[in-house]
């Protein structure tokens, strides 16, 4: 039995009247590579942002106090709609990749990678920008790994989208992240860059043995790179199982045809199944 690295329980989230996440439960184990699928607006980004404590879940569910709980790598992130004190400790161990890269565009590539080291740097060093030689070496190694060592001194704004996404991955490597959450890392990239970025993520997953959760729009990428797929539909977990089981009927139901998915209850066994929860 592997160690559980992500545990989400009864997570609900409303944006005004929009019920974006409906009683979501999710469990990911050490070393898994999971694709998070679902049509636009189904809540993929929202779920991922909750996992990193960038958004907080609902405080109440149907006027009752919520039981929502998220734990990453054994560190509580949020509970009952409130951030836990350990949220920053959890972020430190979590590499987060954004669709829009979210790099600091006016800083150099190397400086952006070094930002990944902030959380392990004493404040007087980080605020004065005095990173150690060892840290700079580590950052260069991370850049080498994503194939961008030659770009270290360039300003990020001069890089292509694919290169920027690799810098973001290098930042996560610098963090020595124990888990990677990637929100549509390839949505704004061309096929070749997409392949490179997915290869790197897959490589990290295999070599470091850390879990990677990646939201994707392209089902073929999900099937090719991720043994497990979790699909969200209208804020509910709609499918959770091995990617081979993702057949055409399921996909059609997921991406908006009128077919209603077969109803069944969630079970704790890892047996893959189609299921939908009643809200």
């Amino acid at each position, binding site marked *: 039995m592997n160690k559980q690295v992500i545990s989400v329980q009864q997570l609900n989230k409303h944006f005004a009247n929009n019920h974006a996440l409906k009683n979501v439960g999710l469990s990911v184990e050490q070393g898994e590579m999971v694709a998070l699928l679902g049509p636009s607006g189904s809540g993929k980004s929202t779920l991922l942002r909750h996992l*990193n404590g*960038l958004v907080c879940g609902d405080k109440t569910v149907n006027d009752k106090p919520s039981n929502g709980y998220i734990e990453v790598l054994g560190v509580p992130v949020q509970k009952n709609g409130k951030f836990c004190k350990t949220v*920053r*400790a*959890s*972020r*430190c*161990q*979590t*590499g*987060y990749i*954004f669709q*829009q*890269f*979210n*790099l*600091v*565009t*006016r*800083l150099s590539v190397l*400086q952006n990678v070094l*930002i*990944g080291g*902030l*959380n392990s740097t004493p*404040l007087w060093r*980080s*605020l004065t*920008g005095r990173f150690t030689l060892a840290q700079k070496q580590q950052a260069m190694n991370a850049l080498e790994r994503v194939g961008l060592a030659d770009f270290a001194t360039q300003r990020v704004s001069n890089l292509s989208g694919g290169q920027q996404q690799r810098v*973001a991955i290098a*930042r996560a490597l610098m*963090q020595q992240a124990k888990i990677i959450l990637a929100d549509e890392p390839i949505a704004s990239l061309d096929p070749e860059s997409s392949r490179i970025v997915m290869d790197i993520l897959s490589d990290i997953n295999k070599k470091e043995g850390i879990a990677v959760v990646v939201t994707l729009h392209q089902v073929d990428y999900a099937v090719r790179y991720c043994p497990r797929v979790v699909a969200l539909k209208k804020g509910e977990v709609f499918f959770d199982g091995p990617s081979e089981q993702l057949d055409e009927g399921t996909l059609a139901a997921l991406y908006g045809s009128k077919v209603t998915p077969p109803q069944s209850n969630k079970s704790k066994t890892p047996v893959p199944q189609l299921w939908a929860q009643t809200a």
Partner: protein
Amino acid sequence: MNAAAADPLSPPRTSWFTLIMWALVIAVLSWSWQGAEIAPMKIVKDAGNMAELASDFFPPDFKNISYYLEEMLITLHIALWGTLFSIILSVPLGLMCAENMVPAWVYQPTRRLMDAARAINEMVFAMLFVVTVGLGPFAGVMALFIHTTGVLAKLYSEAVEAIDPGQVEGVRATGANKLEEIVYGVIPQVLPLWISFSLYRFESNVRSATVVGMVGAGGIGVILWESIRGFMFPQTCAVMLIIIVTVSLLDFGSQRIRKLFI
């Protein structure tokens, strides 16, 4: 408004509102005309006096030029330190005025404080500081410092409010703390604008520093005031020329530098 929404096909017509607005504008303008006692005929009638006064200014008297230059330099010193102090204070205050950085109970009072510092002219502050710290350049430095802080903190905070929040979130997602988020996520984005604003304020502080001297707060303004009061117009003219040349040179130089940052 509601009528238009209910019947989108009715053509827009000149509304009473527009007419009333025009009437109001005209009323305010003519009221202010009287309040300011504007009398263009006086200029025509007294044209002779003006010409006589103007001719008194020429030729300018540069006998004491080294003294003038010395005081002009002091004026620059006043402007430099007045600006520098306010830059240092405006960094935290600017962040504390930005609504995307701090909660309302922080930015509201900070903004009101900055409004106050900005509302009151440097000259008024100069008079107050002459009373408290005595005659001399330091009163000028303090006057510029307080007023400029009010201006810069507002400009800085506007730049902060226009940043791309994604970049800050990227820093936050690595587990960085709030201060690190600011230093690595916010400052790099606003720095070019901040530098440009600061240089611009330095330019205008050099101009202001020439007048704070008139109330005794040091620098070339003191000479300017004394020579005007003593009807020493050729000297006044020389001092004014020195001010014009210095201010123009600095404006030009600082504009060139500012262009580099935008």
